């Protein structure tokens, strides 16, 4: 391969991220790029170490999926000094724009507000008490998706978040926390569930079923990511809406890099991926079939 690109991935903490890794590797292979992959096990320090090692190794470019927004200035500066372009994947950083070439991301706040807006439309002014399953406390998706959702429902007095607790982005915690919501608030009093990711929603659906309620009908469910299992649930009428976060961030990123390395075309600073809303109106079974082998 004539191009060597380093990819510093956060880790493999969720199915979505595993899919992103798979897709990135596929995209690199498709283009004949030698991809150096480094898994940081959820630690920023490991990501910084990896980037420094990439620089020491003299790669042609670096893909970085940053675990957190802050703290990249120093190492990005080193990359810049070594004239290695850096492309950010799926999250941006709090660093001067000249330190990286471009960022291919969705807008986390926007995702939250799409979910909120869907619920606003769905309830159409009827009173609705919402429970919220937050992501890992302190993680940027948890903070931004909460923020976006709250923005969208603010001003609609019929919508109220009555309980909000972290489900750590995991299916089992989603189920456990939903169980406690059902008891603490009372299943009949919950009108909708907003989960920061689909995995927690899938867990919560099971808790709702075990409590003798019908997910999707008795309790409306909206979540984010669009992983295969939530489409399966939607096909069964057990969930209502999901917002897609595409795992294919590498495609646009590598396109931009190749163009730049070929003739110096500067891409825009932000390549935003679409946050597509899927509802029961879509052919969820087909989407499930399509997505299930993507490595989620």
């Amino acid at each position, binding site marked *: 391969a004539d191009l060597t690109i*380093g990819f510093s*991935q956060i*880790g*493999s903490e969720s199915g979505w991220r*595993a899919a992103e*890794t798979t897709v990135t590797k596929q995209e690199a292979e498709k283009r004949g790029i030698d*991809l*150096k*992959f*480094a*898994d940081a*096990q*959820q*630690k*920023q*320090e*490991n990501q*910084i*170490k*990896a980037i*420094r*090692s*990439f*620089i*020491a*190794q*003299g790669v042609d470019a670096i893909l970085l999926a940053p675990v*957190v*927004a*802050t*703290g*990249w*200035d*120093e190492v990005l500066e*080193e990359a810049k*000094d*070594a004239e290695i372009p850096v492309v950010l994947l799926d999250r941006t950083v*709090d660093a001067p724009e000249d330190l990286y070439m471009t960022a291919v991301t969705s807008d986390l706040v926007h995702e939250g507000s799409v979910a909120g807006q869907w619920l606003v439309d769905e309830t159409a002014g009827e009173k609705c008490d919402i429970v919220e399953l937050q992501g*890992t*406390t*302190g*993680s*940027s998706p948890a*903070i931004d998706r909460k923020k976006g959702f709250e923005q969208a429902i603010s001003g609609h007095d019929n919508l109220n978040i009555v309980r909000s607790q972290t489900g750590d982005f995991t299916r089992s915690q989603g189920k456990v926390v939903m169980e406690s919501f059902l008891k603490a608030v009372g299943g009949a009093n919950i009108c909708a569930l907003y989960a920061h990711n689909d995995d927690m929603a899938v867990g919560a659906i099971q808790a709702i079923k075990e409590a003798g309620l019908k997910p999707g009908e008795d309790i409306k469910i909206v979540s984010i990511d669009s992983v295969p299992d939530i489409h399966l649930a939607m096909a069964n009428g057990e969930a209502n809406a999901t917002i897609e976060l595409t795992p294919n961030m590498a495609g646009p990123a590598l396109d931009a890099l190749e163009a730049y390395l070929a003739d110096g075309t500067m891409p825009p600073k932000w390549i935003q991926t679409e946050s597509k809303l899927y509802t029961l109106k879509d052919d969820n079974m087909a989407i499930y079939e399509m997505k299930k082998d993507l490595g989620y």
Partner: protein
Amino acid sequence: MRSTHLPLLITIATFVLAYTLCASQYPAMLSTRVVANLLTDNAFLGIAAVGMTFVILSGGIDLSVGSVIAFTGVFLAVILRDTSIHPLVAFVLVLAITISFGAAMGAMIHYLEMPPFIVTLAGMFLARGAAYVLSTDSVPITHEFYDTLQSLYWKAPGGGRFRLTGMIMLLTFLVGIVVAHRTRFGQNVYALGGGLSTARLMGVPLARTTIGIYATSGGLAGLAGIIFSLYTSAGYSLATVGVELDAIAAVVIGGTLLTGGTGFVAGTFFGILIMGLIQTFIVFDGTLSSWWTKIVIGGLLFGFILLQKGLTWATTLRRKPATEFAAQS
């Protein structure tokens, strides 16, 4: 040369051997960049590991360091954001907090006779919880003093940057070595590790030493937190999860026995380097999937332990057969 220096020599030999092997595979690993990175990237871990070495030498363990580092970072970031305090004052403040925190854990361990594992586990929850309460967001630090500190580096030929933080780590190790072997406090730490009741009968001031050990570890975790905040220019409550396990692994790879009483601060330094080397090697290789990364790290950890065990066994077998199991009890 004391016969007890053997584990230290073995660790150093292991490192040299491993480095040579890595370099023969990837010549770029000989560059000053890699050397400088080993120092800079592991600075905070190294400093925390010095504290951990003292704790483990005394027969204890400190699970709270990762959380204390995160807390320090968040505390600094929040205080520098919300007040106009100078960072140096903030450093003093945060060190005072972490030292007292460590001392409080030491006091609980000594006066309430509770096992360190559990006390520091509770401390780990508490410190991280406190970080969350301060801020769940990651808070950037944008003080010009930080920029000044960050711009202090020496750029070696070949592009390696030897930064202030790495030098502070080296200094910490030097001080640690002197304290461990040349002061009464250090000797008392070893004494504690040799046996608590015996140390008591020999007149070692247990309360003072125990509290001192955990205060040292807390303080060094605080210093590591300051270094980490310099490293990332931010404070983040989810940072450095599990760093305590890395520090423990470094101490153990460095030849210190977890049962306490035997080991060297200098060994920990090479333990840190060996761990950094493993990571660098994996990144240079760049073909391992997420899961193979974990398996390989575990496998290499096992390999090092085994190598150490084997060398120790081979060299001590001839010396003292009679005390084969007296040594373990």
